[in-house]
């Protein structure tokens, strides 16, 4: 681990908060509202009284709700948002993967803990969806690491001086974007918290709990978008502008695509996604890895 400047630690929460609000505002605008809507909604949730269900497991629900943003922030410490990562671990990619898997536990606990049938179904849906997206996602991450010959996020970003990984690993990049949407149960893969379940895993969450949970979901989306930049889009590389601005611009662009996918794509049932993931995405990512492996060995 290399030492990081103090400003990286101070800047991270501000950058994350800014991007989270930008994502929520963009989603509100795309849905026909105003960019101040997330602010009003946040204040409303903050002062809303909690609704209670019969015989819930309050401790585990709270752990699930808090674990969602916590996992996203812990994953963000290896992402060089604005030039330098807070902790540039030698196994940054594996760390990021481990933190985002914590989301499985968070969503399941939040859905299960309320003792509500819809919440329970939503929680189970997310675990099923996780089993579908996780393997292709891991292969996509490993392909980028293989291309750079390193698990360190910084080295992966700087191995793309000539050509972005997104260009010569298009399958891995596409799978990464798809699994980013899936892990944040967003848009086309938002069935775990879908309208057909009256809100799914989040159905019984009210007041501050709901605020933390939904903000955690936006955080996940932001962190997944930010990680795409060093992995596939050349990190902070770019002409004229300073590096940190390039990182922010690229992150914003990926984030906008992810947010937009909610209006743009129909919801995908996770059992069909499961079939597609195991019969199409896993072989495709393995072939992509083979191609990259052969190129690297040459």
């Amino acid at each position, binding site marked *: 681990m290399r030492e990081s400047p103090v400003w990286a630690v101070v800047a991270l929460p501000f950058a994350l908060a800014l991007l989270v609000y930008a994502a929520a505002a963009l989603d509100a605008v795309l849905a026909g509202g105003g960019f101040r809507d997330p602010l009003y909604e946040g204040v409303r949730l903050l002062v809303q009284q909690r609704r209670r269900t019969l015989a819930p*497991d309050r401790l585990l629900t709270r752990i699930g709700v808090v674990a969602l943003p916590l996992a996203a922030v812990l994953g963000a410490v290896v992402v060089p948002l604005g030039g330098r990562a807070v902790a540039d671990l030698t*196994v940054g990619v594996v760390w990021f993967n481990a933190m985002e898997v914590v989301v*499985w536990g968070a969503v399941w606990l939040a859905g299960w803990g309320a003792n509500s049938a819809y919440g329970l179904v939503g929680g189970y849906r997310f675990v099923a969806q996780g089993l579908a997206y996780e393997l292709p996602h891991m292969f996509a991450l490993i392909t980028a690491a293989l291309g750079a010959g390193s698990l360190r996020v910084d080295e992966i970003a700087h191995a793309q001086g000539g050509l972005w990984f997104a260009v010569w690993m298009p399958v891995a990049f596409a799978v990464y974007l798809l699994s980013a949407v899936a892990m944040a149960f967003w848009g086309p893969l938002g069935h775990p918290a879908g309208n057909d379940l009256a809100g799914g895993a989040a159905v019984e969450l009210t007041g501050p709990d709901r605020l933390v949970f939904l903000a955690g979901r936006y955080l996940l989306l932001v962190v997944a978008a930010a990680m795409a930049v060093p992995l596939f889009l050349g990190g902070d590389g770019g002409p004229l502008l300073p590096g940190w601005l390039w990182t922010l611009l690229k992150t914003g662009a990926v984030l906008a695509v992810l947010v937009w996918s909610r209006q743009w794509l129909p919801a995908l049932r996770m059992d069909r996604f499961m079939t597609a993931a195991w019969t199409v995405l896993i072989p495709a990512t393995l072939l992509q890895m083979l191609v990259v492996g052969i190129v690297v060995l040459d």
Partner: protein
Amino acid sequence: MQTFAFWALAAAAVGTGVAVFAVDSMARATFSLLASFLCVAGLLLLAGLQYLGALVVLMMVMEMLVMAVFMIMYMMNPAGLMPMTMVHNRRGALLVSGGLFAVMAAGILLVRWPERRGRPPADPTADLGMALMGPKMLVMMVIGIAILATMIASVVLAVRGGRYGRAEGDGAGGDGANGGGAG
């Protein structure tokens, strides 16, 4: 600082391990076991084994979630929110686990531990990779393919297919448990 973190993590690992048997809910037992494993992952990170530590977090979260799904699926009380005891056959279990603990503790005390030779490598991850994939490449590849084949085969066997397509078919299935299909 490191010593303090070590003892705190070790105590938390044992404590949450004990909690697995003391709590009265399947989900709490599962997640305290997960917490115990996460403390062990913290110990690995503390020892400088970053790759193994992150891997333990990754594998254990996925494993425990899959386990929670199955445990609650097979349980009698719906969704596992009713209180229930986590132990049965108390006397036998206590005898077996007590005996096992005594044997292992005696082993720790009686075995002559080897002296430390050499120094820790600069990058344990790379050394681990070489140890696994260098001379043992053939074994690892065979095991990897065998595990993948087993997974796919068991999924194929578990999915009930019929004359009218797959069980939870894409519009073409005629499965009664699904509330009637296209027929």
